């Protein structure tokens, strides 16, 4: 006994409109990417003879293979470490309730609203002084630090809901806090850690500002960061530009489609918690 089917028609129509609006830019890219090279495409139209091999050419000129490897290295460097230390800190704040922990918590809350622009200029000099400019390690360290506010916040929210009796029982058994953490807390926290890792993957992959500032060589950047260079080189070739950009976007889209349900849940609850 809710709204009847007829009453829902305007809502469904609006929803359909919003869905089309969300997808149209990608459709428009695809339509341009399939036109014959060297032509100047116009609007959205399915080409009479779709040139799928444009993607093969774009793969080469956009140097997608090294970029994929580079992005995977960055993700492998950022996500496990960030997830682990955020889980530890979330445990300290949410479960152990460490004395003075509220100070750390307030600092993290502040970090949630901090724009990347606030730190980017000194970061460049700081990373240069560490000798890590143009290295992936520099970018990895910066990203781990940048993701801490959200990541710790997220894990703290999980540990707030774990009954303290669990830790007490293991304390009575004589387990050290580290053992209890590793063997009891981490397994229970796995779903929260998994969602967090998905979000961290996405944010690392899509990192733009820090990537273009800290790394000059596009082939060592994130996929998103490399777009800047690619556009600089191919801005006049609409067909290849769109084909290359689609290739660069493709990995996140594929991962998103596979983990669609988990992503949506993580994005929704991540937003509400944060």
């Amino acid at each position: 006994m809710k709204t009847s089917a007829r009453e829902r028609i305007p809502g469904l129509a609006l929803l359909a409109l919003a869905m089309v609006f969300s997808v149209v830019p990608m459709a428009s890219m695809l339509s341009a990417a399939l036109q014959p090279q060297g032509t100047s495409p116009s609007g959205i139209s399915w080409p009479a003879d779709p040139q799928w091999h444009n993607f093969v050419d774009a793969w080469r000129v956009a140097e997608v293979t090294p970029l994929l490897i580079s992005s995977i290295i960055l993700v492998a460097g950022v996500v496990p470490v960030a997830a682990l230390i955020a889980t530890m800190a979330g445990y300290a704040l949410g479960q152990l309730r460490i004395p003075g922990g509220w100070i750390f918590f307030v600092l993290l809350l502040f970090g949630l609203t901090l724009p990347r622009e606030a730190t980017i200029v000194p970061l460049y000099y700081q990373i240069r002084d560490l000798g890590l400019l143009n290295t992936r390690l520099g970018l990895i360290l910066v990203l781990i630090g940048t993701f801490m506010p959200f990541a710790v916040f997220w894990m703290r929210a999980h540990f707030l809901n774990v009954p303290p009796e669990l830790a007490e029982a293991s304390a009575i058994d004589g387990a050290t806090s580290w053992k209890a953490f590793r063997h009891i807390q981490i397994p229970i926290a796995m779903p929260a850690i998994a969602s967090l890792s998905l979000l961290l993957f996405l944010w690392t992959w899509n990192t733009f500002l820090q990537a273009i500032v800290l790394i000059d060589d596009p082939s060592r950047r994130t996929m998103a960061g490399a777009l800047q260079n690619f556009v600089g080189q191919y801005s006049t070739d609409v067909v290849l530009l769109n084909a290359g950009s689609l290739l660069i976007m493709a990995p996140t889209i594929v991962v998103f489609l596979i983990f669609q349900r988990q992503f949506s849940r993580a994005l929704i609850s991540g937003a509400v918690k944060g």
Partner: protein
Amino acid sequence: MTRLRHRNWQGWWFALPALLMYGVFVLRPLISTVQYSFYDWDGITPATWVGIDNYRRVLSDPALASSIWHAFFLIIFFTLAPVVGGLFVAALLQEIRIRGLATAARTALFLPQIIPGAAAAIAWVWMFSGNGAVNQVLSSIGLDGITRAWLGDFTWALPAVGVIGTWLGLGFCTILLISGIGKIDTAIYEAARLDGAGFLSTFRAVTLPGLRQEIGVCVTVTIIAALATFDIVFMSTQGGPGTSTMVPGVLVYQLGFTESRIGLASALAIVLTALILVVILPIQRFFRAA
């Protein structure tokens, strides 16, 4: 319980690595930004202390001050349009009961959140170009007269950038609000209906208060996105034509890395940070209260 509530100083070992990374790669550069903002420095020669001159400059120099206005103008597109649009869809729909449709809707609506902002900008540059899909649609409905290269137009470039922001936020807010409205007890809606309440009064009395938290989240996230926007503008217009789409984020980058005016870039970054806090804190208080 009491045992754990003991002064558990050892627990700090668990917090230490995260605190260290956050401290070294966020808090420390932030403090440096504050410090730089009081100096005139080109990044190479020794810096000279200039007091609050850089801040005075940020607020008085038309090019710098207008970038801040642009960021606030973008809130209409980044925040207002997605929240209002999302509310409309959510209120009219209440929930998506068709299973396949729910999945399809989630997938389509989340897509803008998944792809990098830089790639979204490339897609929209093409959409907004002279031969692009936007003009194609306008022509097909008889509006040939207003077609143009939108991002190259002094008057229309900023609203066009705003549309990209709407595109980024609309799906996110819609999904969030639909998931929120699904949590409102349906009995309340039925009671309102039995009382003969119309759509608008039900919307005001039931839907809006019930979605308070979700609306708060949408508003907060999208306002930060509007004020701190960088990727989209940097990749679509670089602030042009002229300075008609210049926003603080791009200006911080240009001043800091291409013009080597580190002090001024830092002052602008601090002003931007302060503005975000000043805007967000009352909003958080308002939506969390009650």
